């Protein structure tokens, strides 16, 4: 690991100021992604600002503004605490399940809610500095420019929204549930002002700038994640399909949330993980479900409509059928209140 200066953030304002002043500085939260990448020489900060002692860990009901009655989850709270908070478990069980589907007990005790959203891709070419990767080496004149996965081993990679520049997928489970739940991300800017970013606008597709995972600017601090009030708690499910039954990243995951009136679907939210460079909202499938009676035939139709747009790579054609079945399965589970 390269040498770096270590400081403790005294308050949010000075943390944001310090980071803004040094393009090579990074916030250190749980460290579970950043330190790993520093050991691999993928991230090379010369300064780490520890933000974990800032008082941004609260989980509370929102009392005013557009998300009134919803829930605010502190950016520096730990994943394990968010998953187990009674208000989250009661009203947003989808989020609890998604967090608990990720990583391990130890890592969820360390990982923060803000850090989780900013974790970087697990593309093995990105991790291995001797391999070509546009995300790691955006400079076109670099000897390591290019995308190793495009023509390389791309079994784990994207089937939606990729570009010739990058075919990586975004690894967070938590974020897939947040996408389905229409969350917003509150951010503190360098000028001391706050801004809110709708979840759909937070992460990016790779396009020509795969080095940018999100629309967060350097120096901005995630202070909280807000969830609007909803009626999905009775009918939601997070399904994660992976190579082993636990402690592995998703091949495909589906966050499904339904609002039901008897057997009729009033509202539907479906977000998918493991298929794109950002949480993939299955809007076509959602539209097809609204107003319909819940049935396997309807679910299959919705899944097929969404998956018709998939563009698999050489090694991941299996993800298309796997996604089809996962959408159907997640919807069945959601209808039954999370039970098979």
């Amino acid at each position, binding site marked *: *690991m390269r*040498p*770096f*200066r*270590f400081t*403790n953030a005294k308050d949010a304002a000075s943390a944001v100021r310090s980071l803004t002043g040094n393009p090579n500085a990074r916030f*250190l939260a*749980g*460290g*579970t992604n950043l*330190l*790993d990448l520093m*050991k691999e020489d993928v991230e090379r900060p010369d300064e*780490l600002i*520890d933000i*974990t002692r800032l008082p941004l860990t609260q989980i509370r009901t929102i009392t005013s503004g557009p998300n009134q009655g919803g829930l605010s989850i502190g950016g520096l709270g730990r994943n*394990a605490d968010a*998953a*187990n908070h*009674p208000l989250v*478990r*009661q009203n947003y*069980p989808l989020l*609890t*399940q998604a967090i*608990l*589907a990720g*990583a*391990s*007990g*130890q*890592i969820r*005790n*360390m990982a923060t809610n803000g850090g989780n959203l900013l974790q970087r891709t697990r593309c093995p070419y990105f991790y291995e500095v001797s391999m070509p990767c546009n995300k790691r080496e955006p400079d076109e004149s670099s000897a390591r420019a290019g995308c190793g996965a495009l023509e390389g081993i791309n079994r784990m990679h994207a089937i939606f929204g990729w570009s010739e520049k990058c075919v990586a997928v975004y690894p967070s489970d938590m974020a897939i549930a947040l996408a389905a739940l229409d969350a917003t991300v509150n951010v503190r800017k360098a000028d001391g002002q706050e801004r809110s970013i709708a979840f759909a606008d937070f992460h990016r597709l790779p396009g020509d700038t795969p080095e940018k995972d999100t629309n967060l600017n350097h120096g901005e601090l995630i202070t909280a994640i807000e969830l609007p009030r909803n009626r999905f*708690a009775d009918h939601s499910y997070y399904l*994660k399909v992976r190579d082993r*039954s*636990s*402690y592995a990243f998703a091949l495909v995951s589906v966050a499904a949330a339904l609002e039901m009136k008897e057997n009729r679907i009033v509202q539907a939210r479906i977000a998918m993980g493991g298929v794109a460079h950002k949480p993939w909202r299955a809007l076509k499938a959602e539209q097809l479900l609204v107003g319909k009676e819940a049935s396997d035939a309807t679910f299959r139709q919705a899944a097929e409509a969404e998956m018709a747009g998939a563009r698999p790579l050489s090694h991941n054609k299996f993800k298309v059928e796997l996604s089809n079945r996962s959408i159907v399965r997640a919807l069945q589970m959601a209808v039954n209140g*999370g*039970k098979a």
Partner: protein
Amino acid sequence: MEDNQTPQLTDDEKKLFEDLMPEDLDEILDTGVNRRHFLKLMTLAGGGLLAAHSAVAEQVFTRPLSVPSAPEPASAAIENGVNVSFKVNGAARKLTVDSRMTLLDTLREKLELTGSKKGCDQGQCGACTVLVDGRRVLSCLTLAATCEGRSVQTIEGLAQNQTGSAVRLHPMQAAFLKHDGFQCGFCTPGQICSAVALLEEARTGHASYVTENVRQTAGPVRLSAEEIRERMSGNLCRCGAYPNIVAAIQEVYSGKPVEQTWQFVG
């Protein structure tokens, strides 16, 4: 600590090395392999080889790295030195660390607590699991600099010293012994620390991905074998001692003797 200050191999270590890769031994000794490098090679050699040599290996791995003590460099001499005061197994510790130093390396190389193991150094195996302020974390992805004011518990701190007499093992340690919850033992300190924390999490009602109804928040969780497996999935065991590990945890959880439940399929 500079590499050239570390001691040369002991006879046991030479023997172990010889068994592992006899054809290389002379060359390696000629070129002057030191103990630290050796341990690194051993780690890379992986669980399978180690298992075959567990008796010697265990001895090798539990001997504290007692280096002929070079005086601690003053904090100014350490690049990006950070002062930290924290508790380790109840005792107050105060030291200056390079900002890059992980908690794992600090425990093993500065505090001579070599119980916590370095399997992958990347958060993927759980061998380095320790408790910080009572919660299980990975010490390989924790910077020592972030531990100011924290209380760290390692495998060495689980057993209790009864006044003036023998050590009393933590019930989880005793259950691992009883159920053969290990073969080579490399993952064991992490497994046990993780298991101790797991019981506390279940007692306070934490859910897991396999919990049937996460909306039900009242009271402790009932730990089925499936629940234990899911909650222990962050601790890998190359020797595959999993059924015995689950049995050991079930025994401590239930307070009743647990029968071996695994069998050969066929």
